[in-house]
């Protein structure tokens, strides 16, 4: 199962990644190889088989919605690459 360079570029955009031309060629080659190996799965008959998302088959566990202490804003902001007062700073999103 081969994947095209255009597809790789599209997936990169979805994943918010970008690649140089050289890396793009390499990733296209490597991903095609890996996907070819994955195609092995089509040998398996899975008709009527339920998918598993939790091996112990745990269902949702609910608890009371109670107010508990949260982290002080200062501690949470201490790792921010850029901040202003008690806010995270991001590049402008809305054009003026």
């Amino acid at each position: 199962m081969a994947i095209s360079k255009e597809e790789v570029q599209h997936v990169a955009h979805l994943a918010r990644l970008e690649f140089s031309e050289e890396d793009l060629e390499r990733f296209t080659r490597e991903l095609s190889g890996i996907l070819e190996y994955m195609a092995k799965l089509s040998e398996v008959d899975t008709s009527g088989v339920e998918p598993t998302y939790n091996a112990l088959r745990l269902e949702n566990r609910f608890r009371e919605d109670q107010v508990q202490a949260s982290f002080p804003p200062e501690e949470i902001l201490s790792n921010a690459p850029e901040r202003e007062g008690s806010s995270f700073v991001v590049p402008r999103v809305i054009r003026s």
Partner: protein
Amino acid sequence: MEHRSLLEWRESLRRREISARELVEYYLERIRRLDPKIKAYLTVCEEEARRQAQEADRRLSAGEDLPLLGVPLAIKDNICTRGVRTTCASRILENFVPPYDATVIERLKAAGAILLGKTNLDEFAMGSSTENSAFFPTRNPWDTERVPGGSSGGSAAAVAADLCAGALGSDTGGSIRQPASFCGVVGFKPTYGRVSRYGLVAFASSLDQIGPLTRTVADTALLLQVIGGPDERDTTSWPEPQPDYLAELEKPLSPLRLGIPKEAFGEGLSSEVRRVLEEALREAEKLGHEIREVSLPHLEYALPAYYIIAPAEASSNLARYDGVKYGFRAQGRDLIDMYKKTRSRGFGAEVKRRIMLGTYALSAGYYEAFYRKASQVRTLIIRDFEEAFRQADLILMPASPTPAFRLGEKTDDPLKMYLSDIYTIPVNMAGLPGLSLPVGFTENRLPVNLQIIGPQLADALVLAFGRALEAALALDLKPPLE
């Protein structure tokens, strides 16, 4: 004094034959002398460990009795430690200092343990050799030209070289058990949910599990006792209380039916590993257990299914690294460009490869063919194990198809590297407990481990059998370092 077990150190500390301060100095001296060669640690908490040791000595003199009081441990650097840098061996988290402790760290501290340092790993735990660390590769204490395995290679090497009394790692597809085999230490992946994942930096949430790496099975039981059990902050943690693992080890073991999956001893297994494992099986028979063949017909599909499920979950989990709340940020023209530049410079090649693979498998038009299909195959793998456990109490398999390989040997071919985990991945897929136990050596004196697998929640039985085999084999597991 070297290569003592954690339990032996604990006894010496209790009897006041050694102080916690002396024990910490013992390890700091070894780290200074040997770690430049091994490179197991990313961060050594020298001052903090000394301070904690003083506190432990004060409490020991006051007669306090805690399960790990004064015992210095190493922690894989994808487990959050309050105030201590937690990098996941990634540039993107190079300067991240967590404002909180993972549940396992909270529990270790409450039990009196000392945090000696944080160990190297493949970036975000993605890899099988620790060569994917953004900082430097770790070396195998048995042969420094070889890899320690991965992704918990730093923790495995630190235990093997006696650079800590014990360690924690994490295991998503074999990341505790495979490096334990390469380094000749005990490594245990508990049943999924036995140990809280709160504060473990998420890779593939339905597969990730924290576990111990130690010099003996009893040490593993002790660490598991402390870190395990239900946790409200992880809704996937198993709600029932855990058994008393150390007490279970003391009980006499009745004869067991040991299942050998024929699919796991075929093509792809190195002849040297096979020879060592077959000897171990004979030893198990001598102990009065019965060896019988079982079958895991979908074993060969576990690896391709895993390499869809794990990257799919990873692509979603790693979306949080966006250069906003923590970690590295690159400048960009606008928000999207900032995201792309931050992530492209912050992540290494293997992490990007898996994010791409996972994003592709989850994208419109491919979800059914890949992610859903793989999750159905996962069900079939679970059924295989359920069937096998009707005929056997435990299943024995290789922990790795080969002994430790050389640095650089597999870095050019991702698929070849992925095959290192062919025997460990099915166990994560089914959520089972798996113990990686040293059982012998190759002719070049590289360690080989056996993998002991139990049904879900049968962690205590796995450890009990492991301990019996460990005692019968009585191996000398000291690498030729000095």
